[in-house]
Protein backbone atom coordinates (compact mmCIF):
# COMPACT_ATOMS: atom_id res chain seq x y z
CA UNK A 1 0.00 0.00 0.00
CA UNK A 2 1.19 3.51 -0.76
CA UNK A 3 0.60 6.45 1.50
CA UNK A 4 0.62 9.99 0.25
CA UNK A 5 -0.33 12.36 2.95
CA UNK A 6 1.86 15.41 2.68
CA UNK A 7 4.70 14.55 5.01
CA UNK A 8 4.88 17.55 7.23
CA UNK A 9 8.07 18.48 8.86
CA UNK A 10 6.59 17.35 12.12
CA UNK A 11 5.91 13.89 10.70
CA UNK A 12 9.62 13.34 10.19
CA UNK A 13 10.11 14.22 13.78
CA UNK A 14 7.26 11.92 14.74
CA UNK A 15 8.83 9.15 12.72
CA UNK A 16 12.15 9.72 14.35
CA UNK A 17 10.75 9.67 17.85
CA UNK A 18 8.47 6.73 17.06
CA UNK A 19 11.37 4.64 15.75
CA UNK A 20 13.74 5.91 18.40
CA UNK A 21 11.54 4.70 21.25
CA UNK A 22 12.42 1.04 20.97
CA UNK A 23 15.24 1.07 18.49
CA UNK A 24 18.81 2.17 18.07
CA UNK A 25 18.80 4.72 15.29
CA UNK A 26 21.44 4.71 12.57
CA UNK A 27 21.99 7.06 9.66
CA UNK A 28 24.70 7.96 7.13
CA UNK A 29 26.95 10.65 8.64
CA UNK A 30 29.57 12.56 6.70
CA UNK A 31 32.79 12.80 8.69
CA UNK A 32 35.25 15.68 8.70
CA UNK A 33 37.61 13.44 6.70
CA UNK A 34 35.08 13.31 3.87
CA UNK A 35 34.11 9.69 4.57
CA UNK A 36 30.44 8.88 4.97
CA UNK A 37 29.77 6.24 7.62
CA UNK A 38 26.71 4.58 9.05
CA UNK A 39 26.55 5.79 12.66
CA UNK A 40 24.14 5.90 15.55
CA UNK A 41 22.40 9.25 15.67
CA UNK A 42 20.66 9.16 19.03
CA UNK A 43 17.69 11.51 18.81
CA UNK A 44 18.50 12.91 15.42
CA UNK A 45 18.60 14.95 13.32
CA UNK A 46 16.92 13.19 10.42
CA UNK A 47 19.30 13.09 7.44
CA UNK A 48 18.39 15.38 4.57
CA UNK A 49 19.18 12.80 1.88
CA UNK A 50 20.15 9.17 1.57
CA UNK A 51 23.89 8.75 1.11
CA UNK A 52 26.08 5.80 0.24
CA UNK A 53 28.28 4.98 3.23
CA UNK A 54 31.79 3.57 2.76
CA UNK A 55 30.72 0.28 4.31
CA UNK A 56 27.14 -0.50 3.32
CA UNK A 57 24.26 -1.75 5.45
CA UNK A 58 25.84 -5.19 5.80
CA UNK A 59 27.80 -3.49 8.59
CA UNK A 60 24.64 -4.03 10.65
CA UNK A 61 22.98 -6.97 8.89
CA UNK A 62 26.04 -9.19 8.57
CA UNK A 63 28.54 -7.55 10.92
CA UNK A 64 32.22 -7.78 10.13
CA UNK A 65 32.75 -9.85 13.26
CA UNK A 66 29.79 -11.61 14.76
CA UNK A 67 30.03 -14.05 17.67
CA UNK A 68 28.03 -17.14 16.77
CA UNK A 69 28.69 -19.26 19.84
CA UNK A 70 30.52 -19.40 23.10
CA UNK A 71 32.08 -22.50 24.60
CA UNK A 72 32.73 -23.27 28.21
CA UNK A 73 33.30 -26.58 30.01
CA UNK A 74 32.01 -28.79 27.23
CA UNK A 75 28.94 -26.70 26.36
CA UNK A 76 28.27 -24.61 23.26
CA UNK A 77 25.87 -21.68 23.69
CA UNK A 78 24.41 -19.46 21.00
CA UNK A 79 25.53 -15.86 21.28
CA UNK A 80 23.06 -13.18 22.31
CA UNK A 81 21.72 -10.96 19.54
CA UNK A 82 21.59 -7.20 19.26
CA UNK A 83 18.25 -5.53 19.86
CA UNK A 84 15.93 -3.72 17.46
CA UNK A 85 17.47 -1.04 15.28
CA UNK A 86 16.38 1.33 12.54
CA UNK A 87 18.38 2.85 9.71
CA UNK A 88 17.18 6.08 8.14
CA UNK A 89 18.54 7.49 4.90
CA UNK A 90 19.08 4.30 2.92
CA UNK A 91 19.54 4.58 -0.85
CA UNK A 92 17.27 2.67 -3.22
CA UNK A 93 20.13 0.61 -4.64
CA UNK A 94 21.04 -0.44 -1.15
CA UNK A 95 17.46 -1.54 -0.42
CA UNK A 96 17.91 -3.85 -3.41
CA UNK A 97 21.17 -5.12 -1.96
CA UNK A 98 19.42 -5.89 1.32
CA UNK A 99 16.75 -7.83 -0.57
CA UNK A 100 19.55 -9.85 -2.13
CA UNK A 101 21.22 -10.57 1.22
CA UNK A 102 17.81 -11.57 2.60
CA UNK A 103 17.64 -14.25 -0.09
CA UNK A 104 21.20 -15.46 0.45
CA UNK A 105 20.66 -15.82 4.18
CA UNK A 106 17.03 -16.95 3.98
CA UNK A 107 17.81 -20.03 6.07
CA UNK A 108 20.37 -18.45 8.38
CA UNK A 109 19.18 -18.26 11.95
CA UNK A 110 21.20 -15.33 13.23
CA UNK A 111 20.73 -13.28 10.05
CA UNK A 112 16.98 -13.80 10.20
CA UNK A 113 16.85 -12.84 13.87
CA UNK A 114 18.65 -9.62 13.01
CA UNK A 115 16.37 -9.13 10.02
CA UNK A 116 13.34 -9.35 12.30
CA UNK A 117 14.95 -6.68 14.48
CA UNK A 118 15.57 -4.17 11.73
CA UNK A 119 13.58 -1.29 10.30
CA UNK A 120 14.83 0.42 7.14
CA UNK A 121 13.84 3.85 5.92
CA UNK A 122 14.75 4.63 2.33
CA UNK A 123 15.23 8.16 1.01
CA UNK A 124 16.13 9.76 -2.31
CA UNK A 125 19.81 10.16 -3.11
CA UNK A 126 21.98 12.32 -5.33
CA UNK A 127 23.68 10.01 -7.82
CA UNK A 128 27.29 10.67 -8.77
CA UNK A 129 29.45 9.64 -11.71
CA UNK A 130 30.08 6.17 -10.21
CA UNK A 131 26.36 5.34 -9.98
CA UNK A 132 24.75 2.77 -12.28
CA UNK A 133 21.63 1.71 -10.45
CA UNK A 134 18.85 -0.20 -12.16
CA UNK A 135 15.31 -0.23 -10.87
CA UNK A 136 14.49 -3.41 -12.80
CA UNK A 137 17.40 -5.38 -11.33
CA UNK A 138 15.58 -6.88 -8.35
CA UNK A 139 12.93 -6.10 -5.71
CA UNK A 140 13.49 -3.85 -2.72
CA UNK A 141 13.72 -4.69 0.95
CA UNK A 142 12.90 -2.08 3.57
CA UNK A 143 9.94 -0.72 5.45
CA UNK A 144 9.34 2.90 4.52
CA UNK A 145 10.48 5.22 1.78
CA UNK A 146 10.06 8.95 2.31
CA UNK A 147 10.61 11.77 -0.14
CA UNK A 148 9.89 15.31 1.00
CA UNK A 149 6.10 15.38 1.00
CA UNK A 150 5.48 11.70 0.38
CA UNK A 151 5.82 8.41 2.19
CA UNK A 152 5.61 4.87 0.84
CA UNK A 153 5.06 1.84 3.04
CA UNK A 154 7.28 -0.98 1.80
CA UNK A 155 6.28 -3.53 4.43
CA UNK A 156 3.47 -4.18 6.88
CA UNK A 157 5.76 -3.03 9.69
CA UNK A 158 6.32 0.17 7.74
CA UNK A 159 2.61 0.59 7.24
CA UNK A 160 2.01 0.26 10.97
CA UNK A 161 4.67 2.81 11.84
CA UNK A 162 3.25 5.30 9.32
CA UNK A 163 -0.23 4.77 10.75
CA UNK A 164 1.10 5.38 14.22
CA UNK A 165 2.60 8.63 12.97
CA UNK A 166 -0.77 9.73 11.62
CA UNK A 167 0.06 9.26 7.95
CA UNK A 168 -2.91 7.38 6.56
CA UNK A 169 -3.79 8.26 2.98
CA UNK A 170 -2.34 6.89 -0.23
CA UNK A 171 0.36 8.51 -2.31
CA UNK A 172 0.55 8.35 -6.07
CA UNK A 173 3.37 7.39 -8.33
CA UNK A 174 6.49 5.29 -8.41
CA UNK A 175 9.48 5.59 -6.12
CA UNK A 176 11.84 8.38 -7.21
CA UNK A 177 14.59 6.28 -8.84
CA UNK A 178 17.41 8.30 -10.39
CA UNK A 179 17.02 8.28 -14.16
CA UNK A 180 19.52 7.48 -16.88
CA UNK A 181 21.83 5.49 -14.64
CA UNK A 182 21.76 2.19 -16.50
CA UNK A 183 23.42 3.31 -19.73
CA UNK A 184 26.86 2.08 -18.73
CA UNK A 185 25.78 -1.28 -17.34
CA UNK A 186 27.29 -3.93 -19.62
CA UNK A 187 24.85 -6.82 -19.85
CA UNK A 188 27.32 -9.67 -20.17
CA UNK A 189 25.86 -13.15 -20.53
CA UNK A 190 27.24 -16.24 -18.75
CA UNK A 191 28.11 -17.60 -22.19
CA UNK A 192 30.13 -14.52 -23.07
CA UNK A 193 31.85 -14.72 -19.70
CA UNK A 194 32.68 -18.42 -20.12
CA UNK A 195 33.88 -17.98 -23.71
CA UNK A 196 36.29 -15.21 -22.68
CA UNK A 197 37.99 -17.12 -19.87
CA UNK A 198 41.42 -16.60 -21.44
CA UNK A 199 40.87 -13.02 -22.62
CA UNK A 200 43.96 -10.83 -22.12
CA UNK A 201 41.98 -8.38 -20.01
CA UNK A 202 42.07 -10.84 -17.11
CA UNK A 203 45.84 -11.08 -17.01
CA UNK A 204 46.05 -7.34 -17.45
CA UNK A 205 43.69 -6.59 -14.56
CA UNK A 206 45.38 -9.28 -12.47
CA UNK A 207 48.75 -7.63 -12.93
CA UNK A 208 47.37 -4.47 -11.32
CA UNK A 209 45.15 -6.02 -8.65
CA UNK A 210 46.72 -5.65 -5.20
CA UNK A 211 44.42 -8.29 -3.66
CA UNK A 212 43.62 -5.69 -1.03
CA UNK A 213 40.02 -6.85 -0.86
CA UNK A 214 38.59 -3.33 -0.81
CA UNK A 215 36.12 -4.00 -3.64
CA UNK A 216 34.30 -6.80 -1.89
CA UNK A 217 34.66 -5.26 1.57
CA UNK A 218 32.67 -2.23 0.42
CA UNK A 219 30.27 -4.18 -1.82
CA UNK A 220 26.71 -4.23 -0.46
CA UNK A 221 26.10 -7.73 -1.86
CA UNK A 222 29.43 -9.43 -1.08
CA UNK A 223 29.02 -11.81 1.81
CA UNK A 224 31.85 -14.40 1.92
CA UNK A 225 32.70 -15.29 5.47
CA UNK A 226 35.12 -17.35 7.49
CA UNK A 227 34.97 -18.57 11.06
CA UNK A 228 37.56 -17.71 13.68
CA UNK A 229 37.99 -18.75 17.29
CA UNK A 230 39.06 -16.54 20.15
CA UNK A 231 40.27 -18.37 23.21
CA UNK A 232 40.42 -16.61 26.56
CA UNK A 233 42.73 -17.38 29.46
CA UNK A 234 39.79 -18.57 31.59
CA UNK A 235 39.21 -21.45 29.18
CA UNK A 236 36.20 -19.96 27.40
CA UNK A 237 36.10 -19.72 23.64
CA UNK A 238 34.02 -17.63 21.29
CA UNK A 239 33.66 -18.40 17.64
CA UNK A 240 33.01 -15.54 15.27
CA UNK A 241 31.71 -15.34 11.78
CA UNK A 242 34.02 -12.84 10.12
CA UNK A 243 34.04 -11.33 6.63
CA UNK A 244 36.27 -13.14 4.20
CA UNK A 245 37.27 -12.08 0.74
CA UNK A 246 37.70 -14.03 -2.49
CA UNK A 247 40.91 -12.10 -3.25
CA UNK A 248 42.76 -13.47 -0.24
CA UNK A 249 45.32 -16.21 -0.77
CA UNK A 250 43.58 -18.75 1.47
CA UNK A 251 40.08 -18.43 0.02
CA UNK A 252 40.29 -21.34 -2.40
CA UNK A 253 42.79 -23.42 -0.45
CA UNK A 254 42.12 -26.70 1.31
CA UNK A 255 44.09 -28.19 4.19
CA UNK A 256 47.44 -29.30 2.88
CA UNK A 257 47.75 -26.19 0.70
CA UNK A 258 46.14 -27.17 -2.62
CA UNK A 259 44.62 -24.03 -4.14
CA UNK A 260 41.52 -24.47 -6.29
CA UNK A 261 41.59 -20.81 -7.41
CA UNK A 262 45.27 -19.99 -7.81
CA UNK A 263 46.29 -16.54 -8.96
CA UNK A 264 44.70 -13.14 -9.11
CA UNK A 265 43.10 -13.64 -12.54
CA UNK A 266 41.13 -16.65 -11.29
CA UNK A 267 40.02 -14.65 -8.25
CA UNK A 268 38.93 -11.68 -10.35
CA UNK A 269 36.93 -14.03 -12.55
CA UNK A 270 35.38 -15.61 -9.47
CA UNK A 271 34.26 -12.21 -8.22
CA UNK A 272 32.74 -11.26 -11.55
CA UNK A 273 30.95 -14.60 -11.75
CA UNK A 274 29.55 -14.11 -8.26
CA UNK A 275 28.52 -10.52 -8.88
CA UNK A 276 26.92 -10.85 -12.29
CA UNK A 277 25.62 -14.43 -12.31
CA UNK A 278 25.09 -15.39 -8.66
CA UNK A 279 25.67 -18.62 -6.77
CA UNK A 280 23.35 -21.42 -5.66
CA UNK A 281 19.63 -20.69 -5.74
CA UNK A 282 20.41 -17.11 -6.85
CA UNK A 283 22.17 -18.28 -10.02
CA UNK A 284 21.05 -15.98 -12.81
CA UNK A 285 20.50 -12.97 -10.55
CA UNK A 286 22.86 -10.07 -11.21
CA UNK A 287 23.67 -8.72 -7.76
CA UNK A 288 25.61 -5.61 -8.79
CA UNK A 289 23.25 -2.87 -7.66
CA UNK A 290 25.45 -0.27 -9.34
CA UNK A 291 26.34 1.70 -6.23
CA UNK A 292 29.88 2.33 -7.52
CA UNK A 293 31.59 1.68 -4.18
CA UNK A 294 34.06 -0.81 -5.68
CA UNK A 295 35.07 1.59 -8.41
CA UNK A 296 35.70 4.27 -5.82
CA UNK A 297 37.54 2.00 -3.40
CA UNK A 298 39.92 0.26 -5.82
CA UNK A 299 43.42 1.76 -5.46
CA UNK A 300 44.30 0.65 -8.99
CA UNK A 301 41.01 1.57 -10.70
CA UNK A 302 39.85 -1.92 -11.62
CA UNK A 303 36.24 -1.76 -12.75
CA UNK A 304 34.22 -4.94 -13.31
CA UNK A 305 31.92 -3.10 -15.70
CA UNK A 306 34.86 -2.06 -17.85
CA UNK A 307 36.22 -5.61 -17.82
CA UNK A 308 32.79 -6.91 -18.82
CA UNK A 309 32.62 -4.40 -21.65
CA UNK A 310 36.07 -5.51 -22.84
CA UNK A 311 35.05 -9.18 -22.65
CA UNK A 312 32.02 -8.49 -24.81
CA UNK A 313 34.16 -6.62 -27.28
CA UNK A 314 36.81 -9.31 -27.34
CA UNK A 315 34.38 -12.13 -27.83
CA UNK A 316 35.22 -14.03 -30.97
CA UNK A 317 38.31 -11.97 -31.65
Amino acid at each position, binding site marked *: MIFGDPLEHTLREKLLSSLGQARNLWAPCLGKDGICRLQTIGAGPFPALAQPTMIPLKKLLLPYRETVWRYQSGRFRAAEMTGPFAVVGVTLCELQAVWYLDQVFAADESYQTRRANRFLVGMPCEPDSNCRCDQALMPLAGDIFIDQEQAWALSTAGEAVLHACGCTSQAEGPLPWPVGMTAQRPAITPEQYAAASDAPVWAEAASHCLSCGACSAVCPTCYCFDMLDDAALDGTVSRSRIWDNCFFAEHGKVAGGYDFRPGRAARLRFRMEHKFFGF*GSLRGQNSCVGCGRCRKACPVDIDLDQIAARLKGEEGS
Partner: protein
Amino acid sequence: MTCSLLPVPAIIEAIKPMVVDNHLFVFRPEQPIELSPGQFVEISIPGVGGFPVSACDLVDEELLSCCIRRVGRVTEALYQLEVGDTIGLRGPFGNGFPLEMFDGREALLIAGGLGMAPLRALLQALLNDLHPDKIILLYGSREPGALLFREELIALARRGRIELRFSVDFAETLPGPAAGVFCRIGLVNELLADLDFNPSKTVAAVCGPPALYRCVLEELAAIGLAPATIFATLERRMRCGIGECCHCVVGGRYLCKDGPVFSLEELRGMVGAI
Protein backbone atom coordinates in the same frame (compact mmCIF):
# COMPACT_ATOMS: atom_id res chain seq x y z
CA MET B 1 13.67 -24.01 8.44
CA THR B 2 16.69 -22.02 9.52
CA CYS B 3 20.20 -23.30 10.11
CA SER B 4 22.34 -22.42 13.05
CA LEU B 5 26.11 -22.47 13.23
CA LEU B 6 25.90 -23.91 16.75
CA PRO B 7 27.56 -27.31 17.08
CA VAL B 8 26.46 -30.30 19.13
CA PRO B 9 29.01 -31.39 21.74
CA ALA B 10 30.59 -34.75 21.03
CA ILE B 11 32.91 -36.85 23.16
CA ILE B 12 35.90 -38.55 21.63
CA GLU B 13 35.12 -42.20 22.27
CA ALA B 14 38.14 -43.82 20.63
CA ILE B 15 41.27 -42.93 18.70
CA LYS B 16 42.77 -45.66 16.55
CA PRO B 17 45.96 -45.06 14.61
CA MET B 18 45.43 -46.45 11.09
CA VAL B 19 48.42 -45.52 9.00
CA VAL B 20 51.05 -42.82 9.46
CA ASP B 21 49.38 -39.47 10.31
CA ASN B 22 45.99 -41.01 9.77
CA HIS B 23 43.91 -41.82 12.82
CA LEU B 24 40.39 -43.07 13.05
CA PHE B 25 38.46 -40.87 15.48
CA VAL B 26 35.22 -42.16 16.93
CA PHE B 27 32.91 -39.46 18.23
CA ARG B 28 29.78 -39.81 20.34
CA PRO B 29 27.61 -36.74 19.70
CA GLU B 30 25.14 -35.71 22.38
CA GLN B 31 22.38 -36.07 19.80
CA PRO B 32 22.91 -38.64 17.04
CA ILE B 33 23.76 -37.13 13.65
CA GLU B 34 22.25 -39.16 10.83
CA LEU B 35 24.72 -39.26 8.01
CA SER B 36 24.51 -40.98 4.67
CA PRO B 37 27.66 -42.11 2.79
CA GLY B 38 29.29 -39.13 1.08
CA GLN B 39 27.71 -36.54 3.37
CA PHE B 40 29.95 -34.66 5.77
CA VAL B 41 30.05 -32.92 9.13
CA GLU B 42 31.93 -29.85 10.37
CA ILE B 43 34.18 -30.62 13.30
CA SER B 44 34.91 -27.77 15.73
CA ILE B 45 37.84 -27.79 18.09
CA PRO B 46 37.00 -24.95 20.47
CA GLY B 47 39.76 -22.38 20.56
CA VAL B 48 41.43 -23.68 17.42
CA GLY B 49 38.98 -23.92 14.53
CA GLY B 50 37.02 -26.32 12.38
CA PHE B 51 37.12 -28.44 9.25
CA PRO B 52 34.79 -30.59 7.15
CA VAL B 53 35.09 -34.36 7.14
CA SER B 54 33.05 -37.27 5.86
CA ALA B 55 32.34 -40.40 7.85
CA CYS B 56 33.91 -43.76 7.12
CA ASP B 57 31.67 -45.89 9.32
CA LEU B 58 27.94 -45.43 9.74
CA VAL B 59 26.97 -48.80 11.17
CA ASP B 60 26.39 -47.53 14.71
CA GLU B 61 23.96 -44.62 14.55
CA GLU B 62 25.05 -43.30 17.93
CA LEU B 63 28.64 -42.93 16.81
CA LEU B 64 30.46 -41.13 14.08
CA SER B 65 33.76 -42.52 12.84
CA CYS B 66 36.02 -40.35 10.75
CA CYS B 67 39.40 -41.06 9.28
CA ILE B 68 41.31 -37.82 9.72
CA ARG B 69 44.69 -37.00 8.28
CA ARG B 70 47.05 -34.81 10.25
CA VAL B 71 47.54 -32.13 7.64
CA GLY B 72 46.99 -28.64 9.07
CA ARG B 73 46.73 -26.45 12.14
CA VAL B 74 43.32 -27.73 13.24
CA THR B 75 43.84 -31.44 12.62
CA GLU B 76 47.16 -31.08 14.43
CA ALA B 77 45.22 -29.83 17.46
CA LEU B 78 42.74 -32.70 17.14
CA TYR B 79 45.66 -35.13 17.26
CA GLN B 80 46.61 -33.67 20.64
CA LEU B 81 43.20 -34.46 22.12
CA GLU B 82 42.48 -37.60 24.08
CA VAL B 83 39.62 -40.00 24.59
CA GLY B 84 37.00 -38.24 26.71
CA ASP B 85 37.71 -34.77 25.36
CA THR B 86 34.89 -32.69 23.88
CA ILE B 87 34.65 -31.35 20.36
CA GLY B 88 31.74 -29.86 18.43
CA LEU B 89 29.90 -31.34 15.45
CA ARG B 90 27.57 -29.72 12.93
CA GLY B 91 25.76 -31.52 10.17
CA PRO B 92 24.92 -33.59 8.25
CA PHE B 93 25.76 -31.53 5.17
CA GLY B 94 25.71 -32.27 1.46
CA ASN B 95 23.91 -34.74 -0.74
CA GLY B 96 25.85 -37.99 -0.37
CA PHE B 97 26.00 -40.82 -2.88
CA PRO B 98 22.77 -41.77 -4.69
CA LEU B 99 22.45 -45.12 -2.92
CA GLU B 100 19.30 -46.25 -4.73
CA MET B 101 21.16 -46.20 -8.05
CA PHE B 102 23.40 -49.06 -6.95
CA ASP B 103 20.48 -51.41 -6.40
CA GLY B 104 20.57 -54.30 -8.85
CA ARG B 105 23.58 -52.92 -10.70
CA GLU B 106 27.32 -53.43 -10.54
CA ALA B 107 29.19 -51.11 -8.19
CA LEU B 108 32.65 -49.89 -9.11
CA LEU B 109 34.40 -48.02 -6.32
CA ILE B 110 37.66 -46.22 -7.07
CA ALA B 111 39.61 -44.68 -4.20
CA GLY B 112 42.84 -42.76 -4.07
CA GLY B 113 44.63 -42.26 -0.76
CA LEU B 114 42.41 -40.89 1.98
CA GLY B 115 39.52 -41.03 -0.53
CA MET B 116 38.99 -44.55 0.79
CA ALA B 117 37.38 -43.11 3.93
CA PRO B 118 34.02 -41.96 2.48
CA LEU B 119 33.99 -44.94 0.11
CA ARG B 120 34.32 -47.26 3.09
CA ALA B 121 31.00 -45.89 4.41
CA LEU B 122 29.51 -46.44 0.95
CA LEU B 123 30.97 -49.93 0.85
CA GLN B 124 29.30 -50.73 4.18
CA ALA B 125 25.96 -49.53 2.83
CA LEU B 126 26.43 -51.58 -0.34
CA LEU B 127 27.25 -54.70 1.67
CA ASN B 128 24.63 -54.31 4.36
CA ASP B 129 21.60 -52.53 2.92
CA LEU B 130 21.79 -52.47 -0.84
CA HIS B 131 21.83 -55.23 -3.36
CA PRO B 132 24.32 -54.59 -6.11
CA ASP B 133 25.08 -57.57 -8.36
CA LYS B 134 28.76 -57.10 -7.83
CA ILE B 135 31.14 -54.81 -5.94
CA ILE B 136 34.54 -53.97 -7.36
CA LEU B 137 36.95 -51.82 -5.36
CA LEU B 138 40.07 -50.32 -6.92
CA TYR B 139 42.22 -48.59 -4.37
CA GLY B 140 45.44 -46.73 -5.06
CA SER B 141 47.81 -45.41 -2.46
CA ARG B 142 51.37 -44.22 -2.01
CA GLU B 143 52.68 -47.52 -0.65
CA PRO B 144 51.24 -50.71 0.84
CA GLY B 145 51.61 -49.38 4.36
CA ALA B 146 49.42 -46.36 3.55
CA LEU B 147 46.39 -48.41 2.48
CA LEU B 148 43.51 -47.68 4.86
CA PHE B 149 41.35 -50.58 6.14
CA ARG B 150 43.74 -52.92 4.35
CA GLU B 151 43.13 -56.06 6.40
CA GLU B 152 39.38 -55.54 6.49
CA LEU B 153 39.21 -55.10 2.73
CA ILE B 154 41.39 -58.15 2.11
CA ALA B 155 39.14 -60.21 4.40
CA LEU B 156 36.06 -59.05 2.44
CA ALA B 157 37.79 -60.01 -0.80
CA ARG B 158 38.73 -63.44 0.55
CA ARG B 159 35.13 -64.07 1.51
CA GLY B 160 34.11 -63.16 -2.02
CA ARG B 161 32.05 -60.15 -0.93
CA ILE B 162 34.04 -57.74 -3.06
CA GLU B 163 36.51 -57.87 -5.91
CA LEU B 164 39.57 -55.94 -4.75
CA ARG B 165 42.59 -54.51 -6.51
CA PHE B 166 45.26 -52.31 -4.99
CA SER B 167 47.80 -50.12 -6.69
CA VAL B 168 50.73 -48.35 -5.04
CA ASP B 169 53.17 -45.72 -6.24
CA PHE B 170 56.14 -47.61 -4.86
CA ALA B 171 56.88 -50.60 -2.66
CA GLU B 172 59.85 -52.61 -1.43
CA THR B 173 57.76 -55.75 -1.47
CA LEU B 174 54.24 -56.15 -2.77
CA PRO B 175 51.62 -58.20 -0.97
CA GLY B 176 51.29 -60.87 -3.65
CA PRO B 177 48.68 -63.25 -4.98
CA ALA B 178 49.87 -65.79 -2.40
CA ALA B 179 48.25 -63.61 0.23
CA GLY B 180 45.15 -63.41 -1.92
CA VAL B 181 45.85 -59.81 -2.78
CA PHE B 182 45.98 -58.18 -6.17
CA CYS B 183 48.43 -55.32 -5.91
CA ARG B 184 50.56 -53.67 -8.54
CA ILE B 185 52.80 -50.68 -8.84
CA GLY B 186 51.24 -47.95 -10.91
CA LEU B 187 48.27 -45.64 -11.04
CA VAL B 188 44.85 -46.67 -9.86
CA ASN B 189 43.24 -46.08 -13.26
CA GLU B 190 45.57 -48.70 -14.71
CA LEU B 191 43.65 -51.24 -12.61
CA LEU B 192 40.66 -50.77 -14.91
CA ALA B 193 42.32 -52.89 -17.59
CA ASP B 194 41.21 -56.53 -17.74
CA LEU B 195 38.46 -55.93 -15.23
CA ASP B 196 35.49 -58.24 -15.58
CA PHE B 197 32.43 -56.06 -15.41
CA ASN B 198 29.61 -54.75 -17.54
CA PRO B 199 30.12 -51.00 -18.03
CA SER B 200 26.58 -50.35 -19.18
CA LYS B 201 25.25 -51.92 -15.97
CA THR B 202 27.76 -50.23 -13.68
CA VAL B 203 27.52 -47.32 -11.26
CA ALA B 204 30.89 -45.87 -10.27
CA ALA B 205 31.87 -43.91 -7.16
CA VAL B 206 35.25 -42.20 -7.18
CA CYS B 207 37.00 -40.40 -4.35
CA GLY B 208 40.55 -39.15 -4.26
CA PRO B 209 42.83 -36.21 -4.99
CA PRO B 210 42.18 -33.85 -7.95
CA ALA B 211 44.74 -35.70 -10.11
CA LEU B 212 42.69 -38.90 -9.82
CA TYR B 213 39.54 -37.19 -11.11
CA ARG B 214 41.34 -35.66 -14.03
CA CYS B 215 42.33 -39.06 -15.41
CA VAL B 216 39.81 -41.58 -14.21
CA LEU B 217 36.36 -40.01 -14.72
CA GLU B 218 36.56 -39.54 -18.48
CA GLU B 219 38.31 -42.89 -18.78
CA LEU B 220 35.29 -44.57 -17.19
CA ALA B 221 33.04 -42.81 -19.69
CA ALA B 222 35.34 -43.96 -22.49
CA ILE B 223 34.98 -47.62 -21.52
CA GLY B 224 31.21 -47.36 -21.65
CA LEU B 225 29.84 -46.10 -18.33
CA ALA B 226 27.08 -43.52 -18.77
CA PRO B 227 28.29 -40.10 -17.47
CA ALA B 228 25.18 -39.94 -15.29
CA THR B 229 26.33 -43.10 -13.49
CA ILE B 230 29.87 -41.96 -12.69
CA PHE B 231 30.01 -40.16 -9.33
CA ALA B 232 32.84 -38.25 -7.71
CA THR B 233 32.94 -36.54 -4.35
CA LEU B 234 34.82 -33.24 -4.41
CA GLU B 235 36.98 -31.66 -1.77
CA ARG B 236 36.89 -27.92 -1.09
CA ARG B 237 37.28 -25.58 1.85
CA MET B 238 33.73 -25.90 3.16
CA ARG B 239 33.44 -23.55 6.12
CA CYS B 240 29.71 -23.19 6.72
CA GLY B 241 28.19 -26.30 5.13
CA ILE B 242 24.93 -24.45 4.46
CA GLY B 243 25.60 -22.70 1.15
CA GLU B 244 26.56 -19.26 2.37
CA CYS B 245 30.27 -18.67 2.91
CA CYS B 246 31.28 -19.10 -0.79
CA HIS B 247 34.57 -20.96 -0.29
CA CYS B 248 33.39 -24.17 -1.96
CA VAL B 249 31.62 -22.63 -4.97
CA VAL B 250 32.38 -24.16 -8.36
CA GLY B 251 30.51 -23.23 -11.53
CA GLY B 252 28.08 -21.21 -9.45
CA ARG B 253 27.12 -24.16 -7.25
CA TYR B 254 27.75 -24.60 -3.56
CA LEU B 255 29.53 -27.93 -3.23
CA CYS B 256 28.52 -28.15 0.42
CA LYS B 257 24.83 -28.08 -0.49
CA ASP B 258 24.45 -29.35 -4.07
CA GLY B 259 27.41 -31.70 -3.64
CA PRO B 260 29.94 -32.78 -2.68
CA VAL B 261 28.89 -35.78 -4.83
CA PHE B 262 28.37 -34.99 -8.51
CA SER B 263 27.95 -37.15 -11.59
CA LEU B 264 30.37 -36.73 -14.47
CA GLU B 265 27.42 -35.43 -16.46
CA GLU B 266 27.10 -32.54 -13.99
CA LEU B 267 30.84 -32.05 -13.62
CA ARG B 268 31.27 -31.52 -17.36
CA GLY B 269 29.17 -28.39 -17.01
CA MET B 270 31.06 -27.09 -13.99
CA VAL B 271 34.21 -25.33 -15.19
CA GLY B 272 37.09 -25.77 -12.75
CA ALA B 273 35.41 -28.54 -10.76
CA ILE B 274 38.12 -31.12 -11.44
